[in-house]
């Protein structure tokens, strides 16, 4: 894969997140976007006049608005500025970060504002996702992003009991994290003694995928300001550096329902490429936090193995041993992750924002209780596509 190092370093200097919830009927779209933009500017100590370029994105047509960046201009502050719209499905938020990073690294702009938003209550999420499928065949068959494929696979490999318990343990851990994050949409205060009850009684969606396992449908926005190394050091006392990123696509998944293993996932492929070219031999040792785009507890469990390049049941043991908890060996989603909060076009940029907050050390109640220097953030979408970002506290790689 062709790849060259960046022309110059790029730092995150401002972060803004709205409160995420199922209903934001108190504001319209540009007003909601503006909340995140305002926060990011305040966080950076900048005004909109300091922004050279605005990058805007969400799920294409989920709210059935063509060119929402045009309607949102007053909320984004893009009036009179360079502006781009990026929309790559579930990975949109990650692509926004990659795009903004590239725009600054190229030397075209010194300060770039990236904004991801979604107001899922103004459209129909599952209908929207189903409409992304090929209209000549797959649209008749697709059931949104709902699939029990990962459940079938993990159960086949590790047995019903162990697999179901691992998925529910993962779910409960994510909820415990969400309860610490005031911006999280769903925080149920689940307790460990509810495990059997939830495994038995949470309403089934598809096969072994139950309602409790699946991500929410949320409203909200997230904005991040990126700056060149020189500017970043002027603006912020603790910029977070975007070390590298990778995007991997594959063809459509018309043959997803195959039960034929092993398969090459874009997650593992992306991780191998990205870690390889950055000399990261042991990602589990290297990273202090991983904000994963985990649309369901089943995927969350299964994908740990892919992203950390693990073998056998190492990923299951990470969950069973609660290594993935906020105070564990490898904290996953101290924010509560996507299962708790999923405004889709914002979801992946939130992963980067949350990993960056952990590195800055100012995440609040959901701050990991030890030094965080190296962060990983993933995006997922399209038909099984991956975007991965490495964030760093120090410019020393």
């Amino acid at each position, binding site marked *: 894969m062709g790849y060259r190092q960046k022309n110059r370093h790029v730092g995150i200097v401002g972060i803004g997140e709205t409160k995420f919830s*199922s209903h934001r*009927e*108190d504001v319209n779209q540009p007003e909601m976007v503006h909340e995140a933009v305002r926060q990011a500017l305040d966080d950076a100590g900048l005004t909109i006049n300091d922004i050279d370029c605005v990058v805007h994105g969400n799920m294409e047509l989920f709210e*059935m608005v063509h060119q929402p960046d045009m309607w949102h201009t007053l909320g984004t502050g893009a009036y009179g500025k360079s502006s781009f719209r990026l929309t790559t499905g579930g990975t949109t938020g990650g692509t926004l970060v990659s795009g903004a990073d590239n725009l600054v690294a190229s030397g075209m702009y010194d300060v770039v504002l990236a904004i991801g938003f979604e107001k899922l209550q103004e459209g*129909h999420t*599952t*209908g929207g996702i*189903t*409409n992304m499928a090929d*209209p*000549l*065949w*797959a*649209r*008749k*068959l*697709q*059931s*949104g992003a*709902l*699939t*029990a*494929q990962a459940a*079938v*696979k993990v159960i*086949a*490999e590790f047995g019903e009991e162990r697999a179901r318990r691992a998925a529910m343990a993962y779910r409960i851990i994510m909820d415990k994290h969400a309860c610490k994050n005031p911006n999280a949409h*769903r925080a*149920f205060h*689940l307790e460990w003694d*509810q495990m059997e*009850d*939830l495994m038995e*009684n*949470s*309403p*089934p*969606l*598809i*096969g072994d995928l139950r*309602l*409790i396992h699946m991500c929410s449908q949320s409203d909200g926005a997230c904005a991040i300001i990126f700056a060149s190394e020189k500017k970043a050091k002027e603006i912020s006392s603790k910029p977070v550096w975007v070390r590298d990123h990778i995007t991997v696509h*594959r*063809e459509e998944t*018309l*043959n*997803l*329902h*195959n*039960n*034929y*293993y*092993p*398969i090459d996932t874009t997650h593992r492929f992306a991780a191998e490429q990205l870690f390889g070219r950055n000399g990261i031999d042991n990602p589990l040792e290297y990273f202090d936090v991983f904000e994963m785009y985990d649309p369901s507890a089943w995927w969350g469990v299964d994908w740990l193995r892919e992203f950390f390049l693990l073998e056998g049941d190492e990923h299951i043991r990470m969950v069973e041993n609660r290594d993935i908890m906020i105070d564990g060996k490898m904290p996953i989603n101290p924010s509560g992750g996507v299962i708790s909060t999923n405004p889709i076009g914002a979801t992946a940029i939130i992963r980067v924002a949350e990993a960056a907050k952990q590195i800055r050390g100012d995440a609040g109640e959901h701050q990991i209780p030890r030094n965080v220097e190296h962060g990983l953030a993933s995006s997922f979408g399209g038909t099984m596509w991956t975007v991965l970002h490495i964030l760093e506290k120090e410019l020393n790689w």
Partner: protein
Amino acid sequence: MAEYYGVDVDDIFNTMPARFRPEGAEGVEAIFGYDIGADGKWKLSVGAGQMSVEQTDDLSGCDVVARMDGQTFVGINIGKVDAMAALGAAKLKVEGDFNLFAATGKLFTKYVPPGQEVEPEQELITLKRTISVNQRFATGPVMGTFLQGLKEKKILAIQCPECKRLQSPPREVCAPCRVRNDKWVEIGPAGEMRMMEYCYYASPDPLTGETRETPYGAIGVLLDGCKEDEVFWHLLRPDQLDDVQMGLVMGDTVVRGTRLRPVWSEKRTGSISDIQYFEIDS
């Protein structure tokens, strides 16, 4: 009786007659049971634009029964707890027709504790819109050949000249090999079921706008002549969902799935609907 958020469970049931909205009850004819744990049980009857509610020990004869604790019940009624969230966390359990239970949301105006009535600062207006669009999608010569095959009760696959893999529905090129596919092969029409998505969730069918009937099974079938992961994506006959076995190939583990065959539509137009579904090939 315990108070939750400063409200008795009793208060909510007792004010139901005053809060009843006949316009919200249009077309609703049902008996709803409420099992509020230690706080008691209630039976709500709705029909012909009328309602009655009574405390009872016997919830037999209810069309749907909702079980939850007092905290959850009061929370939902005064807007402190999201019903879907409570359902997700198994704090609310619904026995019977969930969609029927969901209709109770429209039956009453919101409960406001006495003394807490406030005039809203401003009515927030929500605009409701429904979009209906007629679309025509060109299929192109490759997909067109495949769809023509369906009209003639043939399932065609296209083959990559390099890796020899089969794709059905066909694609113009083999993405991993980056070469144009050039050879047509007839596959199936019978095969082995691999994965099935046993769908309980009533998602919309974007081709018709109608909600799909549940449960349904979206399946991958390894049609005869295909190998490895070359499955064909379609639907299972709805009444056979519980009679089939998924196939699996994982390392040394090989499980053979149920043999299936397509059921063709009488009138075939060159579309996915030319096959109604796959059924057990016995």
